């Protein structure tokens, strides 16, 4: 990981991003950058605006103010499907697989924006369409193998247990050939062993595909073990940013997570003794 300050190295550049829901400011002018091949975590207490931030980057919500630049181009006004086509793939906090479809079909849906065949080419099964389908299937199986689900390729996705569904969602997001992968709590609800495997998978996906990864995470083991940079949101505002170690020591962060100590004068005196 070479951290250069060259601006072409920045894949996602967010400035002053704000989202208001009526009187509530869910995200309050957040500046944020992700560099190529970087793994960045977005953390913060519940309701800090992390998912809202994600949804604005992915185009699900229209920002109230601010701009999102991806690969040097503004994403303003683009619909979610256009943003996926530009190269941002995502997973969802509460897994959103196509439960009636097979695993392979789920991954193929992920490739939608990279495939071209229209309905008439499919009706006539033109050679170009057949070639494209075969290649897509091969690629889909390779992705399923990567997340170790290839042997269930023809199983309905809804039949998978929870941890495996998370892995499938990852493969599906990768199928859109993203340059930036948004992972919304990738280890939520996982047992410790599954979590360790997921950390390994995310890191290796980054290494193999060269994607930048932006993740929302509550599990501090994941955040500290995986991310190169951490950004902390609280009440919609960015309160800290830096390496995992910096953030862990940051007073604002400790306060946001644990609350402020209301000190009485006598405590202050006692503190002096213990420290």
């Amino acid at each position, binding site marked *: 990981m070479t951290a250069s300050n060259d601006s072409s190295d920045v894949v996602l550049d967010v400035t002053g991003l704000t989202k208001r829901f009526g009187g509530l400011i869910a995200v309050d002018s957040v500046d944020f950058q992700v560099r190529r091949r970087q793994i960045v975590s977005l953390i913060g207490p519940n309701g800090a605006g992390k998912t809202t931030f994600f949804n604005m980057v*992915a185009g*699900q919500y229209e920002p109230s103010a601010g701009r999102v630049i991806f690969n040097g181009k503004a994403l303003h006004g683009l619909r*979610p*499907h256009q943003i*996926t*086509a530009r*190269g941002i793939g*995502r997973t*969802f906090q509460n897994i*959103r*697989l*196509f439960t*009636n*479809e097979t695993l*392979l*079909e789920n991954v*193929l*849906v*992920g490739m*939608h*924006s990279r*495939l071209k*065949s*229209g*309905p008439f080419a*499919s*009706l006539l099964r033109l050679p170009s*369409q057949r070639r494209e389908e075969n290649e897509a*299937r*091969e*690629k889909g*199986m*390779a*992705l399923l*193998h*990567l997340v*170790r689900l*290839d*042997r*269930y*390729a*023809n*199983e*309905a996705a*809804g*039949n*998978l*247990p929870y*941890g*495996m569904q998370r892995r499938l969602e990852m493969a599906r997001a990768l199928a*859109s*050939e993203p*340059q930036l992968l948004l992972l919304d709590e990738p280890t939520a609800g996982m047992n410790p062993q599954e979590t360790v*495997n997921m950390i*390994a*998978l995310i890191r*290796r996906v980054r290494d*193999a595909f*060269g*994607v930048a990864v932006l993740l929302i995470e509550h599990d501090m083991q994941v955040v500290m073990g995986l991310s190169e940079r951490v950004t902390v949101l609280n009440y919609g505002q960015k309160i800290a940013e830096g390496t995992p170690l910096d953030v862990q020591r940051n007073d604002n962060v400790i306060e946001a997570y644990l609350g402020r100590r209301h000190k009485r004068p006598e405590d202050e005196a006692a503190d002096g003794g213990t420290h």
Partner: protein
Amino acid sequence: MQTAPRMTPGRRAYVEVPADPQQTRNRILQAIAVAFIVAYPFLDLLFGWQALLAFIPMMLMITLALGLNIVVGYAGLLDLGYAAFYAIGAYAAAFFTSPNSPLARVLPGSPFAWMQDFWVAMIMAVLVSGFAGALLGAPTLRLRGDYLALVTLGFGEIVPRLIKNLEPWTKGVKGMNPIGRPYLFGCQFGVDPCEILGMKLKLGMIPYYYLTLVIGAISIFAIIRLRNSRLGRAWAAIRDDEIAAQGMGINPVTTKLWAFSLGASFSGATGAIFGAYLQTISPDQFEYSTSVIVLCMVILGGTGNIWGVMLGGLLIQSFDRIFAERLTGWIHKAGALTGDPTITAAFNSFDLLKSRLLVFGLCLVLIMNLRPQGILPNRKRRETALTDLPEEDLVPEESVLIAGADVPTEKPR
């Protein structure tokens, strides 16, 4: 213990898609069904079943259900006004071919006289219905679920009403007749005797049977191809989870428009054949009840599964057109056999044809309670849980990474 296929340099064994075992079993069933259906007109003659005339509208209705299944089953858009497209198809064909249509005053002798040909009219009907489907689709795109269903219901009501009231063009409630008949090898369908290569044949309605069959087969073929294409997967994705589908790069607007348009276009051909077969069409054939029956066929059999839809259609239609009548006859005969006048009278008062909607309704209530996913559901849920690979196999090893890197990740321009 199952092991995942290992990546070895130069070999790409892992890309093989495992075969679906259910497919083989289905193939055999399909072959038997196809053989029976193709030979049916001769079996009918041979055994004197006299159900050919019931089979033709039956197959037309099943083809309609297949078209509706694209909208309801594949894309998950509840359409309560599908009969409107059927009407548009039938009237479009009638417009071009009927001597009573306003076009009949203009077309003969003009350079467009070829448009009066049934086959041309049928293709026009497909295009017009498909266009109407896109037209209805446009205002419904922002709507979901119940709201969408209401708009389609409204459309289904408007179309017969328009037909009734646009008398100068549609002949209002009287309907249009006659309608141009299809012909092949110089032989008009449904007109006897029929001369092919100097032979005089009495074919009756058999040509219509095969025409319907061919159109039905083309529909099945086309629908299977669409289902397994990029568009078909997009439909399923939109149906299962629209937000996630958008996140995967699917444009919900065009995807839904294609569903409405392609779904409607299947009813175009069906409507054209239906008109030519009956030789008369009137607005009351395309009322709300037709939409509902077709929708029931889709849901009863198993929404989203074309074999289920066909089975549902077959059950409903064969009861409606064949068995209700025959069963009633048998019950009356059974009553007469007892010789007792009161029992005979009681049995004779039993008329399934009159109470067919009651029977039909009861069946729907029963099936929806016992098997809410339809007789042949789209995809079966598993009874046993799937197990993950053993721990040591879960950690992605280096070779997988090379396989992963194999997947092209070119930057989009």
